[in-house]
């Protein structure tokens, strides 16, 4: 279960990091290109620390590379939100903001974990995620309260991605186990922070908060959207074609 829990956190970071790296060289302006790839780098760095720990927890000789590059889709434990396609710049910003608000509160709670390694990763990562949340919040406001076109694109992205937010707070067996053992976080606490932050920023952005309807779930159990397969095909190609490469 500890392995499962660590992988949930690591996989979110790796998959979102990979998704963001798709903007490398394609950002709307140079500063945003650099900002998004910086965030990608932070996330991939966090994933790396977590995979190293997961490999140690498992104790079966697998390495961080094996965990990132040699698992198949159904073995990934990330939430569905982070694997959604980058879309236009607005889609990427909305996806990032919805996740950052969760990620920030999640790490804040994880700092109190009884698991010293997870607490250390959380403290380190929280500093980075603070910048991420600030960046994505500012852009949600700028584009939401921008031109008629940018506003419409943001609202569309928000409506499309909303169905993937419920899963962030729906406890998996690993979440439950971790909470009961003082290792994990209380997702209800995280949810409270998230709801306040999201509603505050959307209001400033003049965007309408969608109603909670049917929520898509399954990522934490390995049931993914079709998009994950394409990500893995690209991300794992090198390691599968030329086995034994290292980070």
């Amino acid at each position, binding site marked *: 279960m500890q392995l499962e829990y660590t992988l949930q956190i690591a996989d979110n970071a790796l998959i979102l990091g990979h998704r963001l790296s798709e903007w490398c060289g394609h950002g709307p302006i140079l500063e945003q290109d650099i900002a998004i790839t*910086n965030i990608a780098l932070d996330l991939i760095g966090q994933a790396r620390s977590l995979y190293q720990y997961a490999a140690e927890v498992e104790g079966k000789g697998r390495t961080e590379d094996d965990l990132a590059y040699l698992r198949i889709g159904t073995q990934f434990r990330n939430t569905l939100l982070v694997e959604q396609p980058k879309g236009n710049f607005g889609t990427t910003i909305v996806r990032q903001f919805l996740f950052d608000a969760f990620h920030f509160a999640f790490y804040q709670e994880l700092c109190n974990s009884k698991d010293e390694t997870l607490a*250390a990763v959380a403290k380190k990562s929280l500093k980075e995620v603070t910048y991420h949340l*600030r960046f994505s919040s500012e852009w949600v406001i700028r584009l939401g309260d921008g031109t008629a076109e940018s506003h419409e694109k943001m609202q569309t992205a928000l409506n499309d991605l909303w169905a993937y937010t419920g899963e962030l707070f729906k406890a998996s067996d690993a979440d439950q186990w971790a909470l009961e053992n003082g290792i994990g976080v209380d997702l209800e606490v995280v949810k409270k922070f998230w709801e306040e932050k999201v509603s505050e920023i959307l209001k400033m952005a003049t965007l309408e908060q969608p109603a909670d309807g049917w929520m898509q779930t399954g990522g934490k159990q390995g049931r993914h959207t079709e998009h994950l397969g394409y990500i893995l095909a690209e991300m794992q190609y090198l390691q599968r074609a030329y086995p034994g490469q290292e980070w």
Partner: protein
Amino acid sequence: MVITKEHIWKILEEVPDPEIPVLSVLDLGIVRDVKFLDNEGIEVIITPTYSGCPAMDMIAVNIKSVLQEKGIHPVRVTSVLHPAWTTEWMTEEGRRKLKDYGIAPPVKGSFDKGALFASERTVECPQCNSSDTRMVSQFGSTPCKALYQCNSCKEPFDYFKCH
């Protein structure tokens, strides 16, 4: 000659940061400890500035090779995450070197994690010392820097972010 910890620390002053070569790894505050191992050899404990800092592997290699050139081996470099690195650990000497190099050093004061729209700290232009500057982007050429521009002399410059 008996090698002491002081010798080791002295030698580490010569190991530059690969991305900001005017700074040594000691100026940056990323070397946390030096230990003598029972089976001879030494261990240098470092901590990353950012989780994804691509320079860390390079730094470990540089530490090993500089020490080995001085006849100190085997050297093991271990990376720890806790306690998390902070710009408060940067030395005064390091801050001065940064400014001379054209990068504004981190403004002192602890990292306020809660503040989402905190008022920007005043960052002085490293060229003309004007405090009339503006942030262009929170993210700069490396994870540790933000991009600023001076309203007085118009020069763009890097700011080493508080962390």
